[in-house]
């Protein structure tokens, strides 16, 4: 066991727990945002850098602070470690920088994006971003591609979290898509437009934090806050059959896996990740296919739970733009 303190909250966790997992055990404000880490996918995390935290004390044995901010999703805790998340202004500034990087090439087409309302990037931008951009160049764009019959890839919105690649690797048989090219022109792609056709491929849609992978059977049918989520199940030979139905009246608009407060799929009662199969997701769109368990619990983060997006005084002074690290020469002259 290891004792770790995050923003002043102490918790004892098993060895090998990451800082992010420990923070999630504490819950609330001390939890860093995570755009690429997904607890149910092995080797996920480390890419987006939104979960950076400041380690002010390495451990009881070696109390030196870590020289650089670390990705909390991939850094295991040590006994006696002390971590700052919300309480370190310089860390919040670094995170605001990461958010800005994620946004400069994002199309910001929320008004026409199916993910709006349940988009992790939207949440992140509201909490940490600026209300305007400092990026004055044309943004990168890609052609939309169909990945198989049911999934649309809109690469322009992608933040390269690699989650869908890990789904393809880990829960479908035989990876049929990965990353092509390098740097800021990297793209998620099926190799030579090979369609993803697999019982579990639809879970890529659920893990996508933005609107890059969307459900073709639901695209443009409704805004997510205009459909009501209810928990339902069916006896499915392929998956757990435990889903969320998104309904308007008696009509089922879409089917997704059940999600927890971090927008990850919930575990089934037997402790396995509740991935759902494509039949449940795409083909069972009648109420008679399902036994309804009751309304779904919607977490505080969702726009569906209303009034979340009140413009608040930010917890910290927006630091972007406020920095003036090097005085300009005319400032120096004025000082003289």
């Amino acid at each position, binding site marked *: 066991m290891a004792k770790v303190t995050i923003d002043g909250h102490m918790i004892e966790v098993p060895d090998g727990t990451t800082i992010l997992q420990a923070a999630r055990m504490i819950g609330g404000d001390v939890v860093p945002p995570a755009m690429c880490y997904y607890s149910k996918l092995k080797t996920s*995390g*480390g*890419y*987006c*850098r*939104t979960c*950076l935290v400041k380690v002010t004390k390495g451990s009881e044995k070696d109390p030196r602070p870590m*020289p*650089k*901010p670390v*990705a909390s999703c*991939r850094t295991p805790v040590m006994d006696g470690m002390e971590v700052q998340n919300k309480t370190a202004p310089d860390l919040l500034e*670094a995170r605001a*920088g*990461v958010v*800005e*990087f*994620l946004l*400069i*090439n994002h199309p910001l087409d929320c008004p026409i994006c199916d993910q709006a309302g349940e988009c992790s990037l939207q949440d992140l931008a509201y909490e940490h971003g600026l209300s305007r951009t*400092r*990026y004055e*160049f044309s943004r990168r764009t890609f052609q939309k591609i169909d990945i198989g019959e049911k999934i649309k890839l809109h690469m322009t919105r992608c*933040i*390269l979290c*690699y989650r869908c690649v890990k789904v393809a690797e880990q829960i479908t048989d035989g990876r049929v898509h*990965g*990353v092509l*090219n*390098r*740097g*800021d*022109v*990297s793209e998620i792609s099926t190799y030579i437009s090979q369609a993803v056709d697999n019982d579990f491929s639809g879970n890529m849609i659920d893990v996508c934090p933005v609107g890059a992978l969307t459900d073709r059977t639901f695209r443009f049918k409704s805004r997510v806050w205009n459909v009501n989520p209810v928990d339902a199940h069916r006896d499915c030979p392929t998956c757990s059959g435990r889903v969320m139905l998104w309904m308007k009246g008696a009509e089922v608009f879409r089917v997704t896996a059940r999600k927890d407060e971090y927008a990850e799929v919930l575990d089934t009662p037997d402790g396995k990740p509740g991935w759902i199969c494509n039949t449940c997701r795409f083909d069972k769109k009648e109420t008679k296919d399902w036994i309804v368990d009751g309304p779904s619990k919607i977490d505080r983060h969702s726009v569906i739970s209303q009034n979340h997006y009140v413009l608040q005084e930010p917890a910290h002074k927006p630091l*972007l*733009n406020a*920095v*003036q*690290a*090097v005085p*300009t*020469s005319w400032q120096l002259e004025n000082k003289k």
Partner: protein
Amino acid sequence: MGKKLLLKDDHIAGIQSYDVYRKNGGYASVEKAVKTMTTEAVVEEVKKSGLRGRGGAGFPTGMKWSFLAKPPGIARYLVCNADESEPGTFKDRYLMERIPHLLIEGMITSSYALGANTSYIYIRGEYYYVARILEKAIDEAYANGWLGKNILGSEYSLDLYVQIGAGAYICGEETALLESLEGKRGNPRIKPPFPAVAGLYGCPTVVNNVETIAAVVPIVNDGGDEYAKIGIGKSTGTKLISASGHINKPGVYEIDLGVPVEEFIFSDKYCGGIRGGKKFKAVVAGGSSVPILPADLILKTAKGEPRLMSYESLADGGFATGTMLGSGGFIVMDEDTSIVKNLWNFTRFYHHESCGQCSPCREGTGWMEKILHRILDGHGTMSDIDLLWDIQGKIEGKTICPLGDAAAWPVAAAIRHFRSEFEEYIKNPKSIKDVKHYYRLNNLQSA
């Protein structure tokens, strides 16, 4: 000039061939190590020598070797990093092309010390012809019993392979290199675990630069203590410097660490002074990623002491007034050089080479390049300079691998030391097009 260790036989005709190399004392270190030394004893000599990694970071090699995990029944690997892609660095190519057997010999001796039975030389795709030279040398070494089963009749066996990369700078980062060697996309891994614990194919692995491995040969031959006598302080031994830019004698020089920078630039033994009698403006001392320094700060530290070609002296003053020895890519610029144009060129390189895994580097490098391009197009604004400063600060230290830092440092240093040059381009866009750089037109003092 002190004694040469790596390039001592450089002038001998035919030294590329096995027979000539052997006649001049080649492969003695393998004989000595395999016949008379335990593996621990070889590691101990390397520790005593104080040798530091020549790939850029300068990590003590003996220490790195002693960190190698040795679980029983699991293979260990030595991988030689011959990806050499840092702009301004070309020493490894010179060494491999001129004296290929020195690297092969170093690989055998080092592999023996680490207990590796399979080793690789990962070489960048552009060095295709060098790979052919190495392959020929490896064939000769096999034919003469230096590689293969039971080397010199001992228990020790080693197979050595050359693997050609596809020409990506990022594959010089050690974990991206290992991914590439495994046949995957060359993305740096997220550490921990470090290669010493889980490297190639998940097995304990040491990755070392070409020059580092070559230096093991004289260390084993003459002893670590002898090697440590050369150099100054913790910068022991000799170092290959690839000198380029506006100097009279560009090329690869083997120096004793600790030579004064002034002597290195102006002495006829080395760079031979600035080309065409021009004024000396700035130096990028260790490959494109290290901070650029104006003439006065590279010749003397902020404290006024002469600056030396050593890890410590070049780093004196931190990044505020110092720089790094890095990979030894020494780029000299005369008074006509535009710092902003040069910076744009470096930044374009890092943008192009970013692997794209992590957001700050993927997005930030392209953004900085675009802003620099705008300034060079005559459309820059004063706030662009602050924006550049802010962006580089938001990349540095927030990425998976040090490529993000490598992209950020040159931008920071150029603004720190040559801000007036950016301002001049912004206030007076005409000066950009002017081939005679505005420094001379305005009769400004450089730096």
